[in-house]
């Protein structure tokens, strides 16, 4: 097989064999000669000022090579978020590598490099820090109140960002409504729980050039942020792309404390420095921000939405980091875009507290909004006796509508209704019983949650990078090397990208190799995030492959005495369209291009082929995608609720998704199933909880932070892929990854309501909350 018929076929991951036999390619395995080990000393206080740090005793411990405190590091305020330029207007630069103002329990105040981890850790215990404890605030609403402790200079009421949108006239819209619904919804702080800890190994050479190995999702972002925080030129940093990393899900989308500290420790010691976070350290960074949402919707008796007004308060923790971006995506894609409604108003607050910092978890503000919006729709339908499927379809956007994000774009492919209808049929929606009507202790229910508008990248977002590039190079053996900065975080990106390259080139997918790369060798690439890889990186790889193919045709046309435009490449054969007998093996074309062109003949040395055929056949690209087409998702859940204990068991999920075109079915199903694990955890159990007195995280290991094991997962997860063939996408593809995480909580919450007739508006839906809602506590 080779060519466009590769699209839609399940192919084996190129890295699977390596991973089942040990998997050497993870950044945790990087081990350089002479490497030192770094550890960070973290503050036990949530809000404090460091008066003095005495490192003298630690310094004397044999094996300790360097110690850094605030005095020793550049004091350049930075924002660690990768996908926004370091000096971008929307970024809030409020972090320091090390400073004397501690704003969350666990913030580093010093770093040590030593010849072993054990010694580095022992050294931490010898550092004496004199803290002045300050009053702390952990609740964002309290933080906004007068008299609350101020976390950052010049930030009134701790409000880091306060965006708002208004479309139409909400007052008029509410006046038009027959019914008005109001609700308050609260979500919790959760962690992405990538399995490979965040780790880096950084080597500063004698010239002051830094070579960085890291488990991050974006090599160019890390180069940029690291250079910015250190106050050096980007060209002094080379970030190596790891063969693969052990998960990310957005949790590795920003520079941590470890990278700049490892860099500085390496600079000081002239040796490579490795810092690996412990699981506790992972848990206290890059979490999904909790958001509290107030939502008011006006509807006519027939179910038409006339107005929606909403307010969201996002607990950003000690620093803004992603909080300043998440709030925007949340406001637009979570609260405002879904459903056509001419009159909408939303206001958001990103608020500083002394909680741990947030991050860029899969869905990026949408899961919180989806839970609120979809829960309220379920309530509206229940109260008005409307069918939740028909209600949604009535108010949904349709193919041909302008894209709500950018009216210059049209929803050229849009399968929301089809996803919803096919999912409803598969789950047996017609057999759904009235809420709370099933008898017995264990009650069953079915619910739905949808997300109508989402992204295939970040095109159109203010300040967010989206251009991306690739280099495709053909080898003499007929294989293609594809180099991109796209980091494979496990989602199968490299599989789909290999398929796209192979399909465009007309060769087998086994002939494509995604090769090693670094920021030195490939064009800039926006991160592996925002459901963007298949669409956006796919387009870049397709373009680079097309350029290489064009060169193949130029040479082959001469050899075949044909017009390049009349050629096609199928199964690694260049053929004249319509006359397949006139063909040439791709390897032959490459041979002609690559071999020296002088040949010994009887008449003496003679050129074998014209010089203009010579040179490696390659193509490159660096481009921004033209649009940001919207996928659409609908999830159906069937649950069983134990009304004596409050436990919720998810029995079955049906997930339907418009992804434009299915590239790799097995990989797509894997995304859905994994997404549902995260969504189910969000819905029912995951929660980072903190001591309300001192801000210490109480659930910073997997014994206390509960995520679903194989036992809690539904036995049946059915994926339905709706193919609407997006005209702007590579082979018609859009995106998949994030919506599978966004919709489950809403679907499960609605199913719980359908089972017991009581609505839970706060996540996670713990047994205790269910029992309380049932009035049994």
């Amino acid at each position, binding site marked *: 097989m080779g060519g466009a018929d590769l699209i839609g076929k*399940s192919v*084996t*991951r190129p*890295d*699977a*064999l390596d*991973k*089942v*036999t*040990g*998997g*050497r390619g*993870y950044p*945790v*395995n990087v081990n350089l000669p002479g490497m030192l080990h770094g550890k960070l000393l973290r503050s036990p206080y949530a809000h404090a000022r460091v008066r003095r740090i005495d490192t003298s005793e630690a310094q004397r411990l044999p094996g300790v090579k360097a110690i850094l405190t605030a005095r020793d590091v550049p004091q350049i305020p930075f924002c660690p978020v990768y996908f926004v330029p370091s000096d971008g207007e929307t970024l809030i630069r409020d972090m320091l590598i090390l400073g004397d103002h501690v704003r969350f329990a666990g913030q580093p105040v010093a770093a040590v490099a030593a010849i072993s981890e*054990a010694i580095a850790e022992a050294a931490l215990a010898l550092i004496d820090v004199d803290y002045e404890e300050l009053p702390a605030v952990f609740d964002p609403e309290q933080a906004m109140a007068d008299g609350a402790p101020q976390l950052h200079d010049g930030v009134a009421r701790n409000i880091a960002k306060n965006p708002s949108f208004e479309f139409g006239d909400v007052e008029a819209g509410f006046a038009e409504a027959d019914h008005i619904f109001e609700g308050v919804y609260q979500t919790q702080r959760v962690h*992405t*729980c*990538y*399995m*490979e*800890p965040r780790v880096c190994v950084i080597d500063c050479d004698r010239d002051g050039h830094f070579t960085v190995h890291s488990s991050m999702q974006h090599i160019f972002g890390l180069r940029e942020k690291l250079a910015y925080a250190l106050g050096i030129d980007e060209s002094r940093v080379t970030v190596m792309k790891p063969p*693969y*990393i*052990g*998960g990310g*899900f957005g949790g590795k989308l920003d520079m941590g404390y470890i990278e700049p500290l490892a860099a500085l420790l390496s600079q000081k010691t002239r040796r490579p420095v490795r810092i690996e976070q*412990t*699981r506790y350290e992972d848990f206290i960074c890059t979490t999904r921000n909790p958001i509290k949402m107030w939502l008011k919707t006006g509807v006519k008796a027939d179910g038409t939405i006339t107005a929606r007004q909403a307010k969201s308060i996002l607990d950003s923790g000690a620093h803004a980091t992603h909080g300043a971006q998440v709030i925007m995506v949340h406001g637009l894609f979570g609260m405002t875009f879904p459903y056509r409604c001419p009159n909408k108003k939303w206001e958001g607050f990103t608020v500083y507290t002394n909680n741990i910092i947030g991050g860029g978890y899969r869905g990026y503000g949408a899961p919180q909004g989806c839970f609120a919006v979809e829960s309220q729709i379920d309530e509206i339908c229940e109260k008005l006796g409307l069918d939740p499927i028909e209600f949604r379809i009535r108010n949904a956007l349709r193919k041909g509508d302008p894209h709500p994000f950018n009216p210059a774009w049209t929803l050229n492919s849009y399968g929301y209704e089809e996803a919803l209808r096919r999912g409803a049929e598969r789950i047996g929606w017609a057999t759904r019983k009235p809420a709370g009507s099933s008898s017995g202790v264990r009650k069953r229910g079915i619910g739905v949650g949808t997300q109508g508008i989402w992204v295939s990248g970040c095109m159109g977002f203010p300040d967010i990078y989206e251009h991306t590039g690739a280099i495709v190079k053909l080898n003499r053996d007929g294989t293609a090397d594809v180099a991109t900065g796209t980091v494979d*975080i*496990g*989602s*199968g990106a490299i599989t789909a990208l290999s398929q796209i390259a192979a399909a465009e080139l007309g060769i087998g997918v086994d002939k494509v190799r995604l090769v090693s790369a670094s920021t030195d060798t490939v064009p800039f690439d926006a991160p592996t995030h925002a459901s963007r890889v298949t669409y956006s990186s796919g387009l870049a790889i397709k373009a680079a492959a097309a350029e290489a193919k064009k060169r193949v045709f130029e040479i082959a046309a001469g050899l075949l005495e044909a017009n390049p435009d009349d050629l096609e490449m199928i199964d690694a054969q260049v053929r004249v369209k319509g006359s397949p007998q006139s063909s040439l093996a791709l390897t032959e074309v490459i041979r002609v291009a690559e071999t020296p062109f002088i040949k010994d003949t009887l008449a003496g040395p003679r050129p074998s082929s014209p010089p203009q055929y010579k040179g490696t056949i390659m193509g490159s690209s660096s481009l921004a995608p033209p649009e940001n087409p919207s996928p659409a998702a609908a999830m159906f859940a069937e649950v069983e609720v134990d009304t004596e204990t409050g436990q919720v068991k998810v029995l079955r999920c049906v997930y339907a998704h418009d992804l434009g075109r299915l590239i790799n079915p*097995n*990989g797509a*199903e*894997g995304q*859905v*199933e*994994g*997404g*549902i*694990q*995260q969504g189910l955890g969000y819905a029912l159990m995951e929660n980072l909880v903190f001591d309300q007195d001192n801000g210490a995280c109480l659930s910073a*290991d*997997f*014994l206390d932070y509960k*995520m679903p*094991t*194989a*036992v809690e*997962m539904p*036995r049946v*997860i059915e994926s339905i892929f709706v193919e609407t063939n997006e005209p702007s996408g590579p082979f018609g593809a859009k995106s998949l990854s994030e919506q599978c995480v966004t919709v489950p909580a809403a679907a499960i919450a609605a199913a719980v309501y359908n089972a017991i007739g009581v609505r839970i508006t706060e996540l996670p839906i713990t047994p205790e909350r269910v029992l309380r809602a049932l009035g049994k506590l």
Partner: protein
Amino acid sequence: MKKTLVLTVNGERHELQVSADATLLRVLRDELGLYGTKRGCDTSACGCCTVHVDGNSVYACAVYALSVDGSAVTTIEGLGNGDRLDPLQDAFIRAGAVQCGYCTCGMIMSARELLAGTPKPDEEQIRHAIAGNLCRCTGYTKIVDAIKMAAGS
């Protein structure tokens, strides 16, 4: 401070000097360079470090190396036979049970123990057998499929 530890790892005898608090995980990764055994939490709750000690799966991060002195340890590198993969490794590839792959080696070690004692497990037995192994990518569906596939073949 250091003590002598004798371990037979994947059939090969090793004599090492280790510190009193060294875990089996540290010895395997840091001393023997067996990177297939992963550290996901170091607090015995994720399963990435699952290996077999005398045929039984354990969390290598929660075992003091010296307490298993003299034992036979099998890691992912010890599965299969030369170039021939263990049927589980093969099934994990074919079923698409590998995404980021960080959990994979531990998962396969747990599944191997299950199949050794229960060659034809049902779905519930499979799910309980891997309950001590977390995966954040796959939702476990294809992992369960792979184990069924390996058991069926």
